[in-house]
């Protein structure tokens, strides 16, 4: 889980992390979009950055890339602050949807960006093939569907063969097959050693591909952990007859605060390793146990618990 106090970024203390922020804060007038955010993304991991609309995700990503200046705090990408020479040399990003020149073809849009960075033109074909857009590369960007624009945006992010990829909602506008392709691409990049910082509303997507997750709410990081740790194991689900008898027995065994009647069954706050003991106790009390299984929370449930199910202030 997250620390509550900002820690300084200490230069020279081991290899720099791809992403590191300390006390990162952004205010727009009286609104606090990002509030003392401490974030660390480690080399080679796929990091899911979650939060409701307006929680401060995009403001954070913009600060990482130097598009928005922090009101306070520090940002380092591979140990370098925004604006430092070469800070974004091996960083690719797609922020808040793709944005390209509508009168240029997909190919020419990438050619402009390749010229800007001195990227060899041969790389353009490579990235277009990676996002499955090579066949339509000669068409004007204005004629692209939303999904094709999204693919071109990802291709632009991949142009420099990045070691850090920052993707803000990369599957927006993609059909299910396109979403699966994008997930596979992210996995391939991660397997090749690319660190990925992925902001997404799609919790299932994050659950499938992220090694660690940070949850931001109202500008603050409210949780940071692996997906498995975050979901945790909430307890044990029991279906039994008679339910009253089962409830009376487990209340006596565990205490009243650890038992809830939900949908005709009992949700118990107890370590699933104690399921066999519970079964023995219930059967011994004359209760017929129909089902007894670990009660797992999905990421969506955790997300709503952490964020209060609502939006923060500014995105």
């Amino acid at each position, binding site marked *: 889980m997250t620390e509550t106090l900002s820690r300084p970024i200490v230069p020279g203390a081991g290899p720099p992390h791809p992403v590191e922020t300390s006390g990162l804060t952004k205010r727009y007038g009286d609104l606090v979009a990002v509030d003392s955010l401490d974030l660390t993304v480690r080399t080679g991991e796929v990091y899911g950055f979650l939060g409701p609309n307006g929680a401060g995700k995009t403001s954070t990503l*913009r600060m990482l*890339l*130097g*598009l*928005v*200046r922090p009101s306070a705090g520090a940002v380092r990408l591979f140990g370098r602050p925004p*604006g430092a020479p*070469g*800070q*974004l*040399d091996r*960083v*690719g*990003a797609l*922020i*808040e*949807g*793709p*944005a*390209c*020149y*509508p*009168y*240029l073809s997909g190919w*020419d849009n990438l*050619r*402009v*960006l390749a*010229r*800007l*960075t*001195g990227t060899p033109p041969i790389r353009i074909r490579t990235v277009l093939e990676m996002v499955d857009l090579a066949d339509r590369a000669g068409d004007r960007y204005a004629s692209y569907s939303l999904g094709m624009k999204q693919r071109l*945006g990802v291709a*632009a*992010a991949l*142009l*420099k063969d990045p070691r850090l990829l920052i993707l803000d909602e990369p599957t927006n506008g993609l059909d299910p097959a396109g979403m699966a392709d994008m997930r596979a691409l992210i996995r391939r990049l991660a397997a090749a050693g690319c660190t990925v910082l992925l902001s997404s509303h799609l919790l299932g997507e994050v659950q499938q591909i992220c090694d660690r997750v940070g949850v931001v709410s109202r500008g603050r990081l409210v949780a940071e952990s692996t997906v498995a740790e975050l979901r945790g194991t909430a307890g044990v689900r029991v279906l039994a007859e008679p339910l009253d008898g089962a409830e009376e027995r487990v209340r006596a065994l565990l205490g009243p605060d650890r038992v809830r009647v939900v949908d005709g069954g009992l949700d118990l706050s107890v370590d699933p390793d104690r399921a066999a003991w519970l079964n023995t106790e219930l059967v011994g009390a004359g209760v017929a146990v129909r089902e007894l299984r670990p009660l797992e929370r999905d990421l969506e449930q955790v997300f709503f618990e952490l964020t209060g199910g609502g939006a923060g202030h500014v995105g």
Partner: protein
Amino acid sequence: MWASWQAEAIKMVRRPGTWLLLTVAVVLSLVFTYLAPYAAYADGSGGVLSDRALDALLPDRLVGNSIGGLPVFIGAIALILAVLTVGAEYAWGTWKTLLTQGPSRLAVYLGKLLVLAAATLVLVLTLFAVGALASLLIAVAESQPVHWPAVGDLALGIGSGWLISMVWAGFGVLLAVLLRGVALPIGLGLVWLLAVQNLLAAVAAPILDWVAELQKGLPGPNAGALAAAFGAGSDTPGVAAVVGGGQAAVVLAGYLLGFVLLAGAYLHRRDIL
């Protein structure tokens, strides 16, 4: 910066609007500098002024004729081109696409200024080339002697035209950065260029001495004065010798520097949203 210039050059050359603006500038210049006056001369409607009208269309008047439109209507074309070059990055949200590739804001900005400088030079050279062809055809058609301006005058004229067009382009860049878009900067820029300047010159300056004095420090009247110094006709909108050519060039250079420095400072400091 060289890389940024190359990238900007691709965008400008491939943009249809660039060529449309160049075409409009050439057509405006041809029609109002050569075709309409020549038509008036040819059908005799110019009256006693006909001979003087013909003189004004011959090759030796090339410099003044070529830069006479820049203080107002062709200046407006330069302003629109600059707003499109800078403001469209806001309108399409492409600043983030450019800047997340790694170049500094300064490098991208300088690339845009360089490509605008190249584009305005092409614009001015095209006006001279088209003007040269038109005046040559008129001279041949009217059996008049062909005397071209001296090379030094041509070079100074081209430089002056370039300076005037860059001032309006710089004004457009500043408006685009301040207002972060395309429509409002073009609208306000044109209101200033086509309406406010004329109102000040034609309505306010004749009745208010301080406005007449103020005119000597504004970019439009100085652009008009510089064009006048090279022989642009005083009947051309915006052309009047309110100050000398040298002073006008210095004032315009100051405006150009001010516009691009102010715009650069704003671009550097403000968030890209």
